[in-house]
């Protein structure tokens, strides 16, 4: 035990007291997180773990050094409210500079939201949180050993590691299908089909020319796919390149590094794929849990926390885009729709009392109290089986939007009322006050906002030049009001398009879908990658696309091309026409040739 243990002893003890109380409430509500390893950490300490996404013992790499160095130089990383890891036991960082109510808020959010989600959502099933720290330590040691090996050194290690990082996002989705047929089996089946078709051409082709042509086309399609290897495109690029049969010339150490990066990427991937669910879940419980009778949160703390609870709603636009706010909206929507009150139950608890030092501590007397039992079976089911994609697609529908739109429009009207009142009080020109009749339609509201935006702009100018009074509301608020009205209008115009626009912002959708189509094993030996073009996000960033392709060339060791779509432009760089097929090709990994297909 160090000096620190004594210095912080009282704080640690109090935190653990609250942890026990939250435990009682959480268990009754059906939450089951991993055991928690709280780590009280200085702000500096938390900042230092940022490049490693909080993971202790991550392997050494310059990219993390770059981030850490930038943090140091910019003095970034002041205060981090919460950081919690998907490990078992789960590591939860608590900042030493948080006040006690804030610590409770963070504990409720992180433990009873995030950790419960990690432990119960099926997307996280393959992440093996028990062993991740041991695995990372092992990886770190392996890479260290390779760096110390004179045959490799930093240059040799980074030659492959940098390349692995470049494609580390492309590690496939979800668990591997155990019944997936191997390439060999598929090939057998297709060959059988070809033989069957040829037989039919002989049999039936004699009687009908059109039938013969049709069958011959089928044969041609199957044969062209038989000429490819693999037959089924591979989405897990790292895993595919890692296999010895696909890249026979790679040294085993390079394979090891690939497997390290692969494992790390697969471990982190579920967190990106459940961002809205996870943050929404945590935002939902941070409030529900602390208000349970077992916790018995003192009134003083409730005032302190009200602002934190409302943090993500302060800007109305957030309820469309912010994972915390939008996620929570969806969860509350589910709770309202499927949840119901299911009788009463008795809860035993010790009340919180203030002791002589002014600290809130547990009282001695046990008392009983009645609470409503809320049935949340549907929520629990969704927490277990969904990921962002399904979650958003299923519940972010018309009903939810109507709700949010109404709330937000109400917010806009309220702000308008407040502004009107302030303008009158401060004696502004009456033509800027929109009261009787109050604006009701979207067009009217938009007009009001536009007029005020202009007034705001000019008032700022006059304020600087002549010292005249400023418009009582900053430009940002007016801008937010405008955005809300626009979104509502867009929704009124075309529900599906508006919904799609917002849904596309979730669940890794912006990650380009790139697959290995062919390795040229049965052809000229050059690899072919294909990018599934998505017009919502547009073509790939050219400069990085080239560099990444060169890195891929380094791993596969063969000439490689990437098929994608690119926008034609005129002499001034303005886009013309629809996107056209485009190819990036590198023969030697040093020059990338580009051409239209």
């Amino acid at each position: 035990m160090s000096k620190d243990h004594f210095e912080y002893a009282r704080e640690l003890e109090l935190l653990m007291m609250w942890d026990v109380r939250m435990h009682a409430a959480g268990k009754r509500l059906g939450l089951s997180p991993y055991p928690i390893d709280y780590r009280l950490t200085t702000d500096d300490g938390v900042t230092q773990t940022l490049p490693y996404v909080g993971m202790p013992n991550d392997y050494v790499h310059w990219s993390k050094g770059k981030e850490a160095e930038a943090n140091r130089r910019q003095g970034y990383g002041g205060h981090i409210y919460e950081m919690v890891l998907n490990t078992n036991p789960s590591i939860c960082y608590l900042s030493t500079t948080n006040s006690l109510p804030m610590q409770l808020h963070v504990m409720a959010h992180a433990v009873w939201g995030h950790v419960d989600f990690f432990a119960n959502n099926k997307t996280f099933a393959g992440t093996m949180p028990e062993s991740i720290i041991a695995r990372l330590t092992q990886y770190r040691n392996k890479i260290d050993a390779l760096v110390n090996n004179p045959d490799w050194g930093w240059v040799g290690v980074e030659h492959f590691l940098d390349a692995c990082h470049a494609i580390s996002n492309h590690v496939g989705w979800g668990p591997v299908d155990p019944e997936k047929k191997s390439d060999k089996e598929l090939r057998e089946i297709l060959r059988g089909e070809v033989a069957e078709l040829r037989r039919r051409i002989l049999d039936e082709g004699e009687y009908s020319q059109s039938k013969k042509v049709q069958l011959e086309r089928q044969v041609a399609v199957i044969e062209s796919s038989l000429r490819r290897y693999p037959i089924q495109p591979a989405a897990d690029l790292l895993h595919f390149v890692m296999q010895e049969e696909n890249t026979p010339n790679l040294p085993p150490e390079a394979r090891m590094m690939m497997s390290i990066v692969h494992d790390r990427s697969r471990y982190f991937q579920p967190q990106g794929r459940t961002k809205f669910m996870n943050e929404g879940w945590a935002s939902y419980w941070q409030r529900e849990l602390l208000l349970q009778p077992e916790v018995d949160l003192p009134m003083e703390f409730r005032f302190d926390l009200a602002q934190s609870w409302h943090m993500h709603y302060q800007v109305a636009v957030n309820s469309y885009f912010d994972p915390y706010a939008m996620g929570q909206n969806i969860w509350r929507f589910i709770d309202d729709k499927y949840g119901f009150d299911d009788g009463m139950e008795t809860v035993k608890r010790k009340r919180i009392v203030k002791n002589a030092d002014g600290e809130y501590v547990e009282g001695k007397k046990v008392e009983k109290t009645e609470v409503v039992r809320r049935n949340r079976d549907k929520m629990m089911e969704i927490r277990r089986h969904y990921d962002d994609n399904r979650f958003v697609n299923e519940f972010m529908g018309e009903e939810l939007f109507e709700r949010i739109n109404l709330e937000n429009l109400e917010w806009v009207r309220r702000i308008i009322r407040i502004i009107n009142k302030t303008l009158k009080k401060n004696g502004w020109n009456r033509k800027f006050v929109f009261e009787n009749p109050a604006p009701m339609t979207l067009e009217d509201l938009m007009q009001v906002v536009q007029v005020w935006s202009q007034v705001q702009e000019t008032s700022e100018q006059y304020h600087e030049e002549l010292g005249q009074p400023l418009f009582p509301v900053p430009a940002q608020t007016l801008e937010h009001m405008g955005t809300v009205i626009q979104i509502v209008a867009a929704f009124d115009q075309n529900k599906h398009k508006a919904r799609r626009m917002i849904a596309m912002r979730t669940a890794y959708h912006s990650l380009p879908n790139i697959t290995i189509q062919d390795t040229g094993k049965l052809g000229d030996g050059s690899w072919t990658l294909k990018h599934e073009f998505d017009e919502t996000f547009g073509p790939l960033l050219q400069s990085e696309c080239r560099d990444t392709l060169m890195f891929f060339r380094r791993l596969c060791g063969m000439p490689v091309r990437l098929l994608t779509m690119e926008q034609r432009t005129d002499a001034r760089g303005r886009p013309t026409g629809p996107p056209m097929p485009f190819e990036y090709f590198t023969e030697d990994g040093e020059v990338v040739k580009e051409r239209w297909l």
Partner: protein
Amino acid sequence: MTKRKTKNGVETPIRSSFTFVAPNDDSLIPILAAGSGKSSITPPSRGGDKTGRDRERYKERQKGKLKGKIGDIIGDNPIITRPGKINVPVPPEKEPIWRPGRDQSGKGGPGKGKPGQDAGDYVEMDFEEFLEMFFAEIGLPNMLKKMFAQTLVKTHKRRGLTNNGPKSRMDKRATAIARLRRASSMKNSRPEDFVPDFAEKCQSVFEAYTFWAYSKAGAETANGSVMFPEPVMVLIDSEVQDYLRSVELADESNPVIEADVDDFRKDVLETLVKYLDENPETTVAPYTVHAALQRHIESYVFVKERDGEIIPSTLEVPFHKTDMRFSRIEEKDDPDSKAMVALVLDRSGSMDGDPIIIAKAYFFICVMFLKTKYKEVAIVMISHDGQEYLWKTEEEFFKIGASGGTVAVPAWELVYNIAEFGARSKTTGNSAGPYPAATWNRYMFHATDGDLFDGEDAIRQWFTKIITAPFNYVGYLECGTSWGGRSGYSLGGQALQGLPAAVKAHLGMAKANSLKDVPDAFKQILDKDRQKGA
């Protein structure tokens, strides 16, 4: 998660408790928490930087990018007057991935990252690192590198002894003497603790002798190694042979000859071992056990006694850490002397670009050389086009002026006046000097593209005047004007070639078309520097 049953059969969850875990000890967590279903909490740890190794590696990579950038570094930093940390902008490290987006302008190109935008886009360089790079880049010959290395750092010499220091610097002889001195004073103050009579002295010499002989021979006894003093002194290992020999040679009438030494020692040891095996209850043999050795030992003790030297055995007075003596290293300062350097730079338009960087490198290496030679170096920076300009800062000094006719006489006049009387620049209003020859070593370096339109006579006259003023040395460099393919000197250089030998003895002339030529230009100072009072 385990649950515990109470007496009533009602399940209550196991309560979290307050568990101590050592900071940063990840190995304990699974034991403390995983099995029990309890939460644990750890107080903050202080200090330490987990990101250290990653950042080191990142900086190392960034430094690798500096190759071939020395010209920019020299051009952008005030290295002559204010050598210190140098910040060099480098393109940011790229971490490309496939992602949607558009390059900034049109189709984009490789290396789009703009320096100055991304964090960590500059490298901080120590002056020492810069020097190393600079020397490597200009290809300074090894001999000169050595000279800089020797004079740049202060010289270190072994001088005298100290009581503590690293083991590699231990002086064994002095240490042994110190122990003898201490033993002698101990014996004077407390004689009762020491061996009183002749026989016991002989015994202690015998024990020391057999101990060393034994350990040298590596022999073993039947009942283990018990009879010898504790092996304390590995330290004087090199002197053991001397000790053994001096015992063996002590009986002058019958010394053991070199060829028989091994046999003699073997014989002693066999006798000794035999005695110990016969007397298992004793651990030490008497010195009389071997007749021949007995005579040697008695003679040895007798001689030492007669010379007044005390023979403490290592057992009586073992080495103590206060006996340790180490060589002392002394730092030597450079001689206490002063020098004034006038740097004269042609700031005409034709000097822009490479020539000015070559000039800066030339000035830099010359000034640095003088700084190793003199304790105090005053730098006077004068640039000229049609007139002279005396500058206070390096940034102003290296700025290119308007193009036009280039004459250097006003600048030389100013140098002369500053050195002799102290003077003030007519254009900038700055003033400097005087630096009288009695107390100052005076130098002038002139860098130009050589197109000086002063006329041969004026050029020769002024150089003669300056060199005989006297200045220790005057350097003249024509830099970077290989246009027109001229191989010889241009106007200025041609004029100087016609100077009399007595003047040329202290004039260095060179042409430099690239940084690689700078050392040659510099080297002349080594031959032609006028030594004062030598």
